[in-house]
């Protein structure tokens, strides 16, 4: 039999971690609220049944405001799953129970209450009377830990048990409010009963949501019931009643912790959000991240490079000659030039994973929020920007948590200016070839990319959106020591896209480039590739980019790494097969080299990012806008760099 189970709960309580433990998936987890922004499905076979789990975005209440919360709420209220599992954090049961009551009101499906992170609760000496809670709530309660996988099997058993029980036995707990509220609820229920269209609705829930002032529900019912009186302050009374019950339950069934679990977190926060050193620490963390990416990876990259040189040497003696050239110049030269950067990219993701898992993300957002306020966005957007250092696609997706559509659009159109990991190969190649201190050039370009992003936010705000800054409400999770296994999964999950790209888009473009550079004449100088590059070269007259660079830039539109692989192929297919770095050194000087880095940083987001912009905004318009906008900015900025740079040197 197939049983569908929805997993919901407050943000950051371990829903996805538990989902992964249940289904063996490897969905993204992180110690900050708002990691999951879309429905994710997974399966587990248990005692002859197929259990389908649906992991949902986190939500504090059912009064959904942002897209991710709406996804969660729709699944809870209207979804066609058979069972709803509400997950709560053992150390913040208060909020968990509050949501549980809302879910119990909203759905007629069987509900199971899961108390997760029980490992941490035990360490803190918290004792939870599971049976007591079960009896009071009249639903099954399971204690789990996604870390140790405790309780995971029990949860599966409970799902089967609940599913096989006849529905009459599933009398759930329904919260009774005080007299005044109950009367108001019944009054609305009676009104609803008069209207046919509400027949299939859960009237009590609609009534409660109406009293809570839920804008969507109000919109739904005011059409049929135009004059509704909502007593003042009843919203607060409803919440108070819920909390009253929550605290009674906690008093009866959950013991106080034997020590303050927040002691360590508070001590760490004292430093990381400090009045004076908080911001410098944040900058230092960023600096270290990129410094390490460059330094630790260097020897590893060298050995990868040596391996491909060796391989290309072997293939270059194959006959016929064109095949040798395709293999060694086109494929190995092109794809190999990218794989050299695998160590950098994996190390970068390892460190990003570390930041995510510790809980620093929320703090970073908190520390810089004031700057964001001046930009009329919030610390929330800032998290999207940090994610953008890894990859623009998840960064754009993460904007779903923003309640304000204006903030969301400004953020997602500016995210592409943040230097993603795919741009790293370009930077490292150029910086390594032309700057005495490549690490500083690298940090320079990252810093520049932050500035450009800021300017972009200002421009977009001016261009399209006038408005007031949106609110910024973010939970501070307790700090956690990252588990190495999770970090490795994180690193692999993100880094593997890079490998996949190497095998697909980069491979294909390397072959295409090779063909274009081999035909029609058999030598590069007169090839189609050269023709193409020379065609647009006049645009970069001031920049003084040679045609190899301009051709590479055209192909780099598909994915930024392709700039490097194309260039490598074009250089490799020259008669004398010169050294890549040497050629770069001869054709660029530090000034226009930096201009090239700036251009690559800003110009057209890759195909994947463009597709995400289109799907997240639901409109082709913004995608096209993004293309034109980024090219324009890239061109102007690189021009400025060249002109100013030359003036400074002269």
């Amino acid at each position, binding site marked *: 039999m197939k049983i569908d189970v929805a997993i919901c709960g407050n943000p950051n309580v371990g829903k996805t971690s538990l989902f992964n433990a249940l289904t063996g998936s490897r969905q993204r987890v992180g110690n900050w609220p708002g990691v999951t922004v879309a429905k994710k499905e997974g399966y587990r076979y248990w005692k002859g049944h197929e259990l389908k789990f649906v992991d949902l975005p986190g939500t*504090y*209440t059912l*009064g959904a*405001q942002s897209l991710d919360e709406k996804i969660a709420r729709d699944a809870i209220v209207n979804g066609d799953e058979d069972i709803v599992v509400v997950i709560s954090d053992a*150390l*913040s049961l*208060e*909020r968990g129970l*509050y*949501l549980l009551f809302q879910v119990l009101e909203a759905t007629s499906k069987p509900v199971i209450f899961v108390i997760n992170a029980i490992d941490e609760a035990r360490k803190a000496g918290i004792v939870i009377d599971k049976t007591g809670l079960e009896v009071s709530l009249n639903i099954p309660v399971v204690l789990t830990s996604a870390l140790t996988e405790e309780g995971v099997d029990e949860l599966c058993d409970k799902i089967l048990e609940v599913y096989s029980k006849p529905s009459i036995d599933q009398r759930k707990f329904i919260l009774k409010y005080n007299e005044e509220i109950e009367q108001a609820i019944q009054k609305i229920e009676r009104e609803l009963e008069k209207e046919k269209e509400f027949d299939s609705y859960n009237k009590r829930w609609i009534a409660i949501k109406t009293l*809570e*002032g*839920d*804008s969507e529900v109000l919109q739904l019912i005011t059409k049929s019931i135009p004059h509704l009186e909502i007593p003042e302050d009843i*919203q*607060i009374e409803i*919440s*108070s009643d819920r*909390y009253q019950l929550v605290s009674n339950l906690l008093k009866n069934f959950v013991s106080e912790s034997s020590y303050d*679990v*927040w002691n360590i977190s*508070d001590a760490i*926060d004292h430093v990381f*959000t*400090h*009045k*004076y050193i*908080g*911001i410098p620490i944040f900058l230092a963390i960023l600096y270290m991240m990129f410094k390490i990416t460059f330094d630790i990876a260097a020897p590893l990259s060298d050995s990868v490079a040596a391996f491909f040189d060796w391989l290309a040497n072997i293939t270059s003696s194959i006959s016929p000659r064109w095949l040798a050239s395709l293999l060694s110049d086109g494929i190995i030269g092109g794809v190999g030039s990218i794989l050299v950067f695998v160590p950098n990219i994996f190390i970068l993701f390892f460190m990003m994973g570390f930041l995510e898992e510790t809980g620093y993300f*929320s703090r970073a*957002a*908190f*520390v810089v*929020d*004031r*700057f964001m*306020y001046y930009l009329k966005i*919030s*610390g929330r957007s800032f998290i999207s920007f940090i994610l953008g250092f890894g990859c623009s696609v998840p960064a754009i997706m993460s904007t779903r948590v923003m309640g304000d559509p204006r903030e969301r659009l400004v953020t997602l159109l500016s995210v592409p200016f943040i230097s993603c990991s795919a741009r790293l190969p370009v930077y490292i190649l150029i910086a390594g070839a032309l700057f005495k201190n490549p690490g500083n050039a690298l940090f320079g370009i990252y810093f520049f990319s932050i500035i450009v992003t800021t300017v972009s936010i200002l421009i977009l705000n001016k261009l399209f959106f006038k408005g007031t*800054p949106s*609110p*910024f*409400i*973010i*939970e*501070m999770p307790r700090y956690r020591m990252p588990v190495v296994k999770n970090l490795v999964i994180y690193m692999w999950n993100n880094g593997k896209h890079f490998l996949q790209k190497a095998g697909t888009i980069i491979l294909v473009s390397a072959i295409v480039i090779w063909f274009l550079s081999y035909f029609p004449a058999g030598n590069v100088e007169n090839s189609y590739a050269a023709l193409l590059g020379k065609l647009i070269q006049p645009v970069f007259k001031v920049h003084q980019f040679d045609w190899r660079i301009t051709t590479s830039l055209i192909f780099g539109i598909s994915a930024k790494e392709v700039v490097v692989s194309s260039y490598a192929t074009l250089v490799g297919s020259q008669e004398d097969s010169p050294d890549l770095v040497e050629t770069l050194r001869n054709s660029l000087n530090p000034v226009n080299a930096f201009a090239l880095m700036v251009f690559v940083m800003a110009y057209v987001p890759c195909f994947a990012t463009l597709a995400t912009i289109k799907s997240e905004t639901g409109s082709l318009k913004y995608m096209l806008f993004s293309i034109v906008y980024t090219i324009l900015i890239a061109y102007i900025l690189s021009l400025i760099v060249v002109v100013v740079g030359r003036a400074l040197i002269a």
Partner: protein
Amino acid sequence: MLIKLDELPEGSVAVIEKVDLPEDLKERILGMGFIPGRRIEVVKKAPLVDPTVYKIGNFRVSLRSSEASKIYVKPVNHIPLFLCPEGTVCKVNALAYGRRFLNELARMGLDVGKKIRILRNNSGKITIEVDGNIHTVGKGRASKIFVEVIE
């Protein structure tokens, strides 16, 4: 006496009295536990003063002052100086941020831990005695000095 949540300095404890936010935001804030009658603690101000981390139950959440200023509270562990009646002696517990403000207080010899005697408190001005010197402060300043009444 109610004051706005964002006016409390770090380390303050207060009881929530009123939440005056727009409906949607209110529902969210209430769901996070900001319910009248509950205890709230000011944990940490950001480096540029805004936003602030508040603690409610076991939950820590950061709010901007644009939202926190719509939440009204009754201070518990200390009250702003302007609420002290004439004749009382109190101890300075906390001071709100503001470089100029702090410098000014330093010139008066006012700092955390100092004892103050309230000589007069009416018509929006407060006359106090610190270390035998007499000063007058306006209501605005007096609302940024948080004291504990000791006699």
